[in-house]
């Protein structure tokens, strides 16, 4: 049945509210980041139970690993070698960020609205030696579940945070920025390491 009120509608989704990684309670462990070509980066990851103990630990590990990695604004579970649809994002303080939601982790996230496509240069901790020009939506609506409570959330964002989210959602779908570059000469040797 798909009548009104039977499926996930806008009312079922809240914003991030007061959610912080600390609400996961468990402490995160810094883990090794895997690099391409590793098969886990090229496989669509599995949906997770956001309330499961291992999902909560994974969320904490993603945040811990992201925080110790200079310049890292997002990290997805496949980058830790785990084929799960979970990622962390934090664009706080980034000069290109406009809307900023702080540090958050989403499970089973999906893009529901994407508009205003713009090209921009991207790098990736799992592709450390290359960068590429990728077109992404600069206005974005994403839905997903919070790890821990499993509460469904809807996130409306733009610009750099929107780009980071799309990059991480791609990781969960088994795609790297290399799969989305604009043309034969849109990939570059990385010149600056943070």
């Amino acid at each position, binding site marked *: 049945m798909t009548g009104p009120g039977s499926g996930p509608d806008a009312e079922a989704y809240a914003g991030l509210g007061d959610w912080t990684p600390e609400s996961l309670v468990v402490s995160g462990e810094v883990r090794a980041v895997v690099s*391409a070509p590793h098969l886990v980066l090229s496989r669509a990851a599995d949906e997770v139970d956001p309330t499961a103990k291992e999902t909560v630990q994974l969320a904490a590990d993603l945040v811990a690993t992201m925080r110790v990695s200079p310049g890292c604004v997002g990290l997805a579970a496949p980058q830790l070698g785990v084929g799960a649809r979970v990622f962390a994002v934090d664009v706080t303080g980034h000069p290109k960020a406009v809307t900023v939601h702080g540090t958050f982790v989403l499970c089973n996230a999906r893009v529901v609205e994407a508009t205003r496509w713009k090209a921009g240069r991207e790098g990736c901790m799992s592709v450390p030696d290359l960068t590429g020009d990728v077109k992404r939506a600069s206005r974005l609506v994403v839905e997903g579940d919070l790890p821990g409570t499993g509460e469904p959330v809807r996130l409306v964002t733009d610009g750099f945070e929107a780009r980071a989210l799309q990059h991480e959602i791609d990781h969960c779908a088994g795609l790297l920025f290399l*799969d989305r*570059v604009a*043309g*034969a000469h849109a*990939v570059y040797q990385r010149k600056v390491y943070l």
Partner: protein
Amino acid sequence: MNELAITVIGRDRPGIVADVAEVLAQLGANLTDSTMTRLRGHFAMTLICTGPAAAEVEAALAPLAAEGQLLATVRAVTPDGEVPPAGEPYVMAVHGSDRMGIVAAMTRVLVDGGGNVTDLSTRLAGSLYVVLAEVELPAGVADTLVDRLHRTAAELGVEVTLRPADPDLL
């Protein structure tokens, strides 16, 4: 008007572009399309120019190549001008562990599907090999080709995506 295809490749150093372009300018050769880049420490130039006879350009470039650091070839070609696109533009991205024959196998699939590769670059970064190709495909073949590309990529142990190239809006 002669049209010449020229390639120059050599150990990179400052001044290769200026040196070669200067030689061509002094001969009255008009540099039209070109691509120049550094590949693993070698500077490579491929260019088309119009003007003088091939032998004249070859002789003028000889002093640059004399020290053995640069290799230049000059060849007369038939002017075709701009060739209109023969299909719809797509971008193929391939990445995975480096191994022999990735470019050969993947581009063969494109060609067998009626495609024409118009631009291609490869990057080797550690053990990661990346191939990016722009290809013109006949209308309606992309879906079938994607299946064939995936099969070939699986045999090679690499990943492939084929997407329509973004149209230039302005």
